[in-house]
């Protein structure tokens, strides 16, 4: 590349730089593509091995820890048992335990978005994505069986039926911080409506309904007309008021001691 003086020289230099840049970008693109290909090969090989040689890997502790490290770094899930006849019939073998671990993992990952309440169908499809390389798909029934095996660890996981849909709740009431957020919204006026909760906290309808219903729970409170009533069942923190003209149900929280909404001392 000869350096020419003057404007011509500058233009040549600029053109040359441009060409180098394009070349660099191409090389980078090829490099990324190649790397992705190699990564995909690596992953599929690891998954194959995890499935075929599971027992052998477990026998050798040093190799096992190295294999796990490889899987973790590359993003491969080493839990890859197949269901097998006996597992399905008698519920033995690792398959349902592995499924259990994967289910709880998905619930943990989606908890920030749905507050611990997930549709069973959605759960199954996410599970299917995770287990792409497994030979059979996982049915909803499998999910339910796996969840039932977790029962011995307490009632943290619950499957509730809402109409035809089934929902899995992974956060027990004692640990559910959603309720705190509703209470904070309620501090403004002493009551909340379903739309307000959805709007202010950006929740789905299902999540909001579930949280409000839980706050009402065990209190048989249906108001007659206006909101004061004297059922002294004291479990629930909220009361329903259906008497308003606009027809929307309001949830009152008398326990919120904010001075502005403290009615009738």
């Amino acid at each position, binding site marked *: 590349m000869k350096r020419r003086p003057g404007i011509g020289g500058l233009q040549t230099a600029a053109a040359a730089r441009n060409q180098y840049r394009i070349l660099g970008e191409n*090389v980078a693109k090829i*490099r*990324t593509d*190649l790397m*992705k290909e*190699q*990564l995909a*090969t*690596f992953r599929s090989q690891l998954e*194959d091995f995890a499935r075929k040689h*599971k027992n*052998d*890997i*477990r026998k050798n*502790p*040093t190799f*096992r*820890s*190295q*294999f*796990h*490290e*490889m899987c*973790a*770094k*590359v*993003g491969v899930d*080493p*839990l890859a048992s197949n269901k097998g006849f006996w597992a399905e019939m008698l519920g033995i073998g690792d398959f349902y*335990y*592995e499924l*259990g*671990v994967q289910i*709880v*993992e998905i619930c*943990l*990952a989606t908890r*920030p978005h749905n507050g611990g309440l997930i549709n069973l169908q959605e759960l199954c499809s996410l599970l299917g*994505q995770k287990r792409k390389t497994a030979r059979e798909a996982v049915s909803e029934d499998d999910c339910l069986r796996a969840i039932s095996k977790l029962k011995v*660890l*307490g*009632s*943290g996981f619950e499957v509730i039926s809402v109409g035809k849909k089934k929902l899995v709740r*992974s956060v*027990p*009431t*004692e*640990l*559910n911080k959603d*309720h705190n957020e509703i*209470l904070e919204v309620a501090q403004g006026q002493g009551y909340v409506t379903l739309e307000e909760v959805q709007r202010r906290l950006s929740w789905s309808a299902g999540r909001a309904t579930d949280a409000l219903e839980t*706050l009402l729970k065990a209190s048989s409170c249906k108001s007659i007309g206006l909101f*004061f009533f*004297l059922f*002294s069942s*004291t479990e629930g*923190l909220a009361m329903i008021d259906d008497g308003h003209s606009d027809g929307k149900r309001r949830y009152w929280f008398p*326990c*919120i*001691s904010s001075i502005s909404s403290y009615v009738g001392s």
Partner: protein
Amino acid sequence: MGCTWCEISQLESLELYFSIHYNIDRQLRSNFTFHHCFDQIPQMSTRWLPAAQLTASGRPVFILGEVESSLLSGVDIEPDDQYPNLSPLKSGILILTTHRLIWISDSSSAFAIPLSAVTHIFSPKKSIKAMFASPRIRIQVLVSPQNGCLDEKGSKSMVITIVVRGKTDPEAFLGKLWEAWRGRAWETLKEESSSSTSTDEGSSRSGIRTRSAVVGVAGILRKEQEMWESTDKSLQDAFQDLNALMDKAKEMVMLAEKMRQKLLSGPSTQGTGTNDEEIGSKQEMQDWMLSVGIASPVTKESAGALYHQQLSRQLADFVKIPLEKAGGMISLIDIYCVFNRARGTELISPEDLLQACSIWEKIDVPVMLRKFDSGVMVIQNKSYSDEEVLARINALVLKPDSLRSGISASDAAMALGIAPAMAKEHLLTAESKGLLCRDISPDGFRFYVNLFGEILTEDIYLVKDYGTYGTWISAVLASR
């Protein structure tokens, strides 16, 4: 401050040394630090083996790359007769790893015999006496000449006898000991770090020599090409079969790490349809999993009869980090998932987990299992105990606002930062302990501080100078 080799305080030890050998002014003595085993003063020393670190729950702290292989209980370690001043270690747990033999006593002190100091393992004596006595394993180790303390660079050697009194299979253990010793895992680590640097230099030097003719852009491209080809080839070779993978395991781990770094720094994902947020959180969880993965999970094969106890200890160690992240309380099912993930393919069943948690009551660990009436089970820190929460409720209920109008479950929930259902439980507990009184009204359920303890039945209007009765009265009066 004391000598690490025996428990005599430093000043005492200096005095011992100097009183026997020299007369040195007291002031000068403080400038000397040494340990006095180097002289011939005969003392009963229990510290002839290097100490091993233990976690808070009594599990050994493993060094990088160290993997547990087997565990025996009821083990004594006896030194050679030629060093009568070394006292034997009695009745502990012996853990064999790829790098060391770790002995843990019940009183939570631990020592380790690095396998690099072992020069010979004797085959077991076959005699009639040996059949009836507890099985013994004898190994020869290097010691320093003066005092018999274990020293990898020592010049003399000593025979250590490992007496196995527990109900375990010494033959299998001996086999694993041979394997670990022959594996020389500690050496390969050093070899690798030195060889990797030397091969880098070598290849770059040879590269310069043979390819000095090719420079510039073409040279760079060709080098890239060759790098990809060699990675391809080693991938192919490694995954031919399981043995090949085992041989090339270390190389593959490094390759995986390189790929991961490039993946993280490079442009993101393959553009699937699902949320970006979900993928982001998945990545974060993956990274977190990597950092807390358990390299040596306790399994039935490695721990035998002590499986549940060791599992319970490993769980107690593991659970600390998730507990902190979750704010002091975490559901048992969440821990089941996270713990199993860290263990990789060595899953434990839910029943095992429950049993491990119930053993915590018997051993001294900083965590506990708690069952709620609703059936929910959680793990919480012992320090996040009821007493602390009660103290906080007490402080909350003595505030002027609360003295006037009491607190409800939701107030407590927001003040303590916990869910309302939990807050209600705590308030009910406080009431049952006599700290609070309830007030049921159309406004709901409220709690006030319990003043009945301070009111005398004879004179119910008497207000003592100290105590909360007076504070309450002043607070209520102030609101009118």
